[in-house]
């Protein structure tokens, strides 16, 4: 895993990729095929198809096919087989990350494609409208430029498949973990409330000895149940003021303050009044934090899976959904859904319309300056030709921690920029992110008599207001100073997103965590070697030797058990990294090494667990989970800055 220097891309040896070259006449198809074959140099199988051949048999565009190059001609579009093939290619672009549809415009103009209506009765217009809604294409593409792009795509085919698989795997794992965390929290909340109601915790005269006997379980249950409530309490006092005088300004502010104060504190008092061991209370509280963080990450995952569409936006004379309207105005973050700690890396999504010269110019300048400052920046120029631009938009918008909307008179009446801004507001409602920053063009008139032409989201966001809170949109006029401020604020060194914990506390925790994190990383990095070595102990156990007894005698049982859990957590994440993220010629053997280590560690943990106390098991599980999270953060950070990794997913 540590050897990330040798970067070499090897094409898949499992199957030969297939590329279709489609033209109306046999000559056209042959010309495209020749160019592709000479450029691809046998890296992929090029299949020539003319409209005549398409009429005889419909080719398979399944997994083996990685791209199609189609010459668009009006005469060809009138043939049903041609149209059907184009339609199936569009389907593939929508469904698969590793399929590209390249278009060569012959006598079909870009205007003709852009002006196609999906509601038309003409099937050609319907398909062209679908094309516009799906595929990123360029009117200036030639056979040569497309052939070069196909070559690049074929070379990186395996990588793009691994990236797509990793994204799906990560989101699925996170979604399942979030669901499990939420269920555990709910399961713990019910008995914790029962305990609070049943035991006279408020009565200082009452002795609770008669309720003793299950202190450890009570401590864990109450710790898990209390953390989300104590988080609410912290949020209330840091946002609404020490006397909670601002709690009425948030829709559920009184509920947050009330629940946090009235229930959160007593739940935590229960184990203290029962004199539960401090170690168990600590296990409960740390578990509570981990589960709460996992649950909150689930909302971010849900946001990442959300697909934006212009069909759902509020059109002219319409109105925003109430929950979007709330987030279009100055507000506080949702303490139940926002991440606990502020995100530290800025991922910026720049939203603008290509119809605006000012927007194009500023988007280019801004993305260059932000990228130079170290922020991750996405604007639609980065979408590769032939791919689904909607998927790229969804993925990048889902990951963004800041959305910068460049708004001028052309933007306020256009649907896609409105859909992006609405998606940002929805993201705020779902997961507390991204922060919306609006830069106004000098030419944009203030909302006045003519503002009825604007789409509702812009009217709401740009409405004058005199209040400013942490989560409302930031509206700035375009000026050198505003751009300077944005660039300075979005440097990774200075950037901090919104989190439930206030910035000062989050910063303190981050600093306090630095040394333990380093220790976890140092210890975790020997996990792969240790995991393979522990097979010796597993074998000794299998041949009948009393490994547990020997380790107990040596007083090494507890330490080894905790170490194994730590190594397992860390190495498990490294296994996933080497399987999906590592860009290395020998990623398969590296994955196998890590995987074997994980198996060895898991076996040893199973062998040792009967000999250790439940407290040690609980602590070790927590150590393992924390190690997994530390390794995850390390892998993602390295993926952002090192070419040896494919990409960062979060």
């Amino acid at each position, binding site marked *: 895993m540590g050897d990330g220097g040798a970067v070499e891309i090897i094409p898949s040896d499992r199957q030969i990729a297939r590329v279709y070259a489609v033209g109306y006449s046999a000559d056209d198809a042959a010309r495209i095929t020749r160019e592709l074959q000479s450029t691809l140099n046998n890296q992929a199988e090029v299949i020539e198809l003319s409209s005549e051949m398409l009429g005889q048999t419909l080719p398979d565009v399944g997994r083996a096919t990685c791209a199609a190059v189609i010459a668009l001609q009006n005469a060809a579009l009138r043939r049903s087989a041609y149209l059907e093939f184009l339609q199936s290619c569009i389907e593939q672009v929508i469904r698969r990350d590793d399929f590209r549809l390249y278009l060569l415009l012959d006598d079909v103009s870009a205007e003709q494609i852009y002006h196609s209506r999906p509601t038309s009765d003409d099937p050609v217009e319907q398909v062209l409208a679908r094309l516009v809604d799906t595929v990123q294409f360029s009117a200036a593409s030639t056979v040569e430029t497309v052939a070069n792009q196909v070559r690049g795509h074929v070379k990186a085919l395996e990588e793009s498949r691994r990236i797509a698989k990793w994204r799906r795997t990560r989101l699925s794992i996170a979604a399942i973990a979030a669901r499990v965390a939420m269920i555990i929290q709910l399961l713990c909340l019910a008995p914790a409330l029962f305990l*609070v*109601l*049943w*035991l*006279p915790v*408020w*009565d200082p005269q*009452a002795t609770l000895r008669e309720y003793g006997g299950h202190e450890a379980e009570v401590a864990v249950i109450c710790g898990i149940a209390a953390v989300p409530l104590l988080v609410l309490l912290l949020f209330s006092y840091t946002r609404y003021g020490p006397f909670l005088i601002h709690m009425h300004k948030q829709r559920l502010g009184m509920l947050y303050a*009330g629940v946090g104060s*009235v229930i959160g504190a*007593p739940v935590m008092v229960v184990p203290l009044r029962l004199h539960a061991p401090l170690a168990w209370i600590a296990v409960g509280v740390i578990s509570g934090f981990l589960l709460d963080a996992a649950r909150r990450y689930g909302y971010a995952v849900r946001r990442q899976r959300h697909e934006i569409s212009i069909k759902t936006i509020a059109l*002219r*004379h319409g*109105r925003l959904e*109430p929950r979007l309207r709330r987030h279009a105005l100055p507000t506080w973050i949702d303490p139940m859904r926002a991440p606990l700690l502020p995100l530290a890396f800025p991922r910026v999504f720049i939203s603008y319309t290509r119809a605006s010269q000012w927007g194009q110019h500023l988007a280019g300048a801004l993305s260059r300056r932000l990228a130079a400052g170290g922020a991750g920046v996405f604007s639609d120029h980065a979408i590769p030709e032939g791919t689904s631009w909607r998927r790229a938009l969804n993925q990048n918008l889902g990951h963004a921690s800041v959305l910068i909307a460049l708004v001028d008179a052309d933007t306020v009446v256009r649907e896609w920029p409105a859909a992006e801004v609405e998606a940002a507001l929805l993201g705020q409602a779902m997961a507390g992110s991204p922060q919306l920053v609006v830069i106004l063009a000098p030419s944009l008139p203030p909302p006045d*008599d*003519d503002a*009825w*032409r604007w789409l509702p989201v812009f009217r709401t966001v740009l409405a004058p207001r005199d209040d400013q809170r942490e989560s409302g949109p930031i509206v700035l006029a375009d000026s050198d100073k505003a751009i300077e401020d944005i660039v300075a604020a979005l440097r990774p060194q200075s950037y901090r997103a919104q989190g439930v914990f206030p910035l000062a506390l989050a910063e303190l925790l981050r600093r306090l965590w630095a040394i333990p994190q380093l220790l976890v990383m140092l210890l975790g990095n020997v996990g792969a070697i240790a995991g393979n070595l522990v097979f010796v102990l597993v074998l000794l156990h299998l041949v009948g030797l009393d490994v547990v007894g020997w380790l107990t005698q040596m007083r090494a049982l507890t330490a080894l058990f905790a170490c194994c859990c730590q190594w397992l957590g860390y190495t498990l994440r490294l296994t996933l990294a080497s399987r999906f993220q590592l860009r290395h010629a020998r990623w398969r053997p590296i994955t196998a090494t890590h995987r074997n280590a994980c198996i060895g560690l898991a076996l040893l943990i199973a062998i040792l667990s009967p000999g250790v106390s439940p407290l040690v098991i609980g602590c070790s599980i927590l150590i393992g989970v924390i190690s997994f999270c530390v390794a995850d953060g390390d892998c993602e950070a390295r993926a952002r800055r090192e070419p040896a990794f494919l990409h960062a997913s979060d």
Partner: protein
Amino acid sequence: MIWLAIVLIAVGNIYIGSLIAMVGLSASIGRRSSVIALFCMISWFVGLYLLYVTTHFTLTFMQAMILGGCVLLSYQYNRKVTGRGMPSVPWHEKLNSMVHAADLICQRHGWKIASVDAARNLASLNRLHFDGGDYDILVQIQSDVEYNLGRAGDVLLPKTADGEIDYDRATAQKLRTMAKSLNGWEDHIGMVKRVEIDYDLSQFDWAAFERLSWLADAIEQQWGTVGLWK
């Protein structure tokens, strides 16, 4: 004794929950609330006194929890059931927003409708024409419920040849419909008279209401009934 206290407290909680929930709602809920409130307060203080006598802290805490639940449930109930069809603001504010929208439209175009004759003069000069801004004013004064209901009728909006809403005719229709719904027609009592029976409308802007009626009549005069609705 303790069981009697629990029963009394439970009943008191339900009432006090209702009371607290109603405070947050509009005055249009009804005047019976003050009588209910009196009973609530009595049962509530009796309950608290009994708790004070028994000094059972767990029950005190349970009492607080039950009260919280009752407040929440009663609020939902009152909002969804008792408040059905009621605006979220007092009636006079709701009606004022409607009649002032017409004033705003007149203001945008510089029409001074000080009398019925002034409105008729505008109609005879064929000056009563509207644009998208006027239409938007009428759409935005609707509540969320009215807006969602109105969307079903969007297909019936008059359209121009290029598929855009014919704002001139659509606004005229909306203003005429609004005036009719407030004033009533044939055997139907108007919304203003209906509301006046149960609620105090002393803060309603009667002058603006009159101006809206004149404007609506003038619209009908200029467009003609058939021309307006064809």
